């Protein structure tokens, strides 16, 4: 290993000379750092007339790279700032380029030191947030309008609906989601039934457990579970796909070919979601009610025949309709949010991750808000 960088100070007639020795390279970064900030003082001697003059001598330096040049320049500038006259003889060989680069970097203007006040910063953030919100709302409405237009155009000439692509997405978001959704709904059905039997036993009201499960599952739990799963599984995937296509300029490529990315990429995905969500809700409802039946037979001492009979009494087609009407609307919102977040992705990998997160969080939030609105609506029309 070559010797590390050192500085020897000695007095000369003109002042102090610092002689750099050893390797001034990246491998010795920590020592360079130290040398750059404090030059050794010369041995005591008679005070010279030009005590302020400082010469940095590179004659005996070994290897020198950008880090070494940085340390030397810093040293020189430090001395100049302290009021000394400092000189650094730049070698006339190729190393001069390193000095030129470092000099440019060190001569940059200092960054503006504007520290904003806390209150102003807070107000600014609130303002920016409000502005971003209004932009988001406008973008949402804009996309809904464009989708409606594309759909209408598609109805007039069905080849523009890109049904082949929609079927492909239906397979991905619908069929392939079936096992996990069925399993999840089965378990939730089991849990609700178990809780029902456990607590209703105290009132001797176990007969009503079936009513509880049926109404809860058909009206609320089934569709909520399915749409939340769809948001997490398919919404995030849509955002990531559309976002990375945006990043790689694939969407711009489509535009330059005269194709509408909404018609080509977004409408088929949203159509697939709208078709898949009610179907998945039916699967989920069935699985949850089956789970409740299993618990009724094993834990609640209710035979399957009795369970089925109670189910027939408790369930009405209105309960089923309430769930199924909500599913496509929620799926539409999930799809629009996913596409919007995808289109908002900028160049960086980070923004893609942010978009996928925002897509899931927002669509689940909207699903729950919509569910509340539907509850009020259905109550108003007596469903």
């Amino acid at each position, binding site marked *: 290993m070559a010797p590390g960088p050192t500085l020897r100070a000695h007095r000369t007639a003109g002042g102090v000379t610092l002689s750099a020795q050893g390797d001034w*390279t*990246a491998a010795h*970064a*920590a020592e*360079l*750092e130290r040398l*750059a900030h404090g030059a050794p003082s010369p041995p005591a001697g008679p005070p010279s007339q030009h005590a302020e003059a400082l010469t940095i001598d590179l004659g005996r330096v070994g*290897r*020198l*790279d*950008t*880090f070494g*040049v*940085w340390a030397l320049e*810093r040293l020189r500038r430090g001395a100049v700032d302290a009021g000394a006259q400092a000189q650094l003889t730049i070698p006339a*060989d*190729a*190393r001069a*380029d*390193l000095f*030129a*680069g*470092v000099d*440019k*970097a*060190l001569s*940059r203007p200092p960054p503006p030191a504007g520290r904003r006040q806390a209150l102003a910063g807070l107000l600014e953030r609130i303002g920016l947030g409000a502005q971003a919100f209004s932009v988001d709302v406008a973008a949402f409405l804009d996309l809904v309008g464009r989708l409606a237009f594309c759909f209408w155009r598609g109805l007039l000439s069905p080849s523009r609906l890109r049904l082949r692509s929609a079927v492909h997405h239906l397979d991905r978001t619908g069929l392939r989601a079936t096992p996990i959704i069925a399993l999840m709904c089965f378990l939730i059905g089991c849990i609700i039934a178990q809780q029902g039997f456990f607590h209703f036993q105290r009132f001797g009201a176990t007969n009503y457990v079936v009513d509880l499960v049926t109404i809860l599952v058909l009206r609320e739990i089934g569709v909520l579970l399915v749409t939340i799963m769809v948001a997490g599984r398919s919404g995030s995937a849509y955002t990531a796909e559309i976002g990375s296509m945006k*990043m790689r300029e694939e969407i711009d490529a489509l535009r330059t070919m005269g194709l509408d990315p909404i018609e080509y990429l977004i409408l088929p995905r949203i159509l697939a979601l709208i078709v898949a969500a009610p179907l998945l809700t039916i699967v989920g409802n069935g699985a949850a009610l089956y789970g409740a039946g299993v618990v009724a037979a094993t834990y609640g001492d209710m035979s399957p025949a009795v369970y089925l009979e109670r189910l027939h009494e408790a369930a009405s087609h209105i309960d089923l309709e309430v769930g199924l009407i909500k599913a496509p609307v929620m799926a539409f919102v999930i799809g629009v949010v996913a596409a919007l977040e995808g289109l908002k992705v*900028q*160049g*960086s*990998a*980070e*923004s893609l991750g942010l978009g996928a997160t925002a897509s899931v969080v927002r669509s689940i939030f909207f699903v729950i808000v919509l569910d509340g609105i539907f509850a009020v609506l259905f109550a108003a029309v007596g469903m």
Partner: protein
Amino acid sequence: MEADEVIAVSDLHVRLGGREVVNGLSFRVRRGEIVGLVGASGSGKTVLLRTMLGLLPKTSGVVEIMGVRLERATPAQSRRVGERCGMMFQQGALFSSLTLRENVEFPMREYLGGSDAMYADVALAKLAMVGLSLSDADKLPSEISGGMTKRVAIARALALDPDILFLDEPTSGLDPIAAGEIDRLIRTLQRVLNLTVFMVTHDLNSLKSVCTRILALYDGRIIAQGAMRDMLAFDHPWLRAYFQGERGRAAQLS
């Protein structure tokens, strides 16, 4: 491996998707050389480069970089090789969530024991050396042009003032002025730091003005090596077409 050899490749075979992409290839690179690798598209240049860096598995053969065989290296050895080698990827491969300055600072933070101020100064110096204006240093990679991306990628490859620099088409997609600056930069750094450069390139001007030796790859083998003027002496149809075509002759004359 002899004392002044920094890269030694012997009898290297790489099979990808059932096809022998690199087929029994051997060469050595001495310290301080600037070696240019040429070859038709799909002749295995990038595969060779990626295999040398350990990014692709090889079927058989030996790759030694600074005396270290990457597949047998201890973690400390491979870290040292990583510190002393810089690689510039064809598409830049800049970290998209870091600014340009942070991209160049990144390897420094990992390997060196300096301060933030030192990293910032040296990173800006590197960016200035590759011809970037310092006002652009706080931009994100998605906000700059393709040519600037190349320059920043070179600056990042040079971040630690490495001993070996691997470049994958450093001047492709650059205008002639920028390409000339990059060529000059490579030469300068080679002289200042006694850098060894191994570059894949199609730029006949850089081959002529920068490279001390040219390796010509054809069908996974090296069919010729030597300086630019020696390339004309080889009697291989592809080499003739490459170096004696219109562009080849223009570069010879300049």
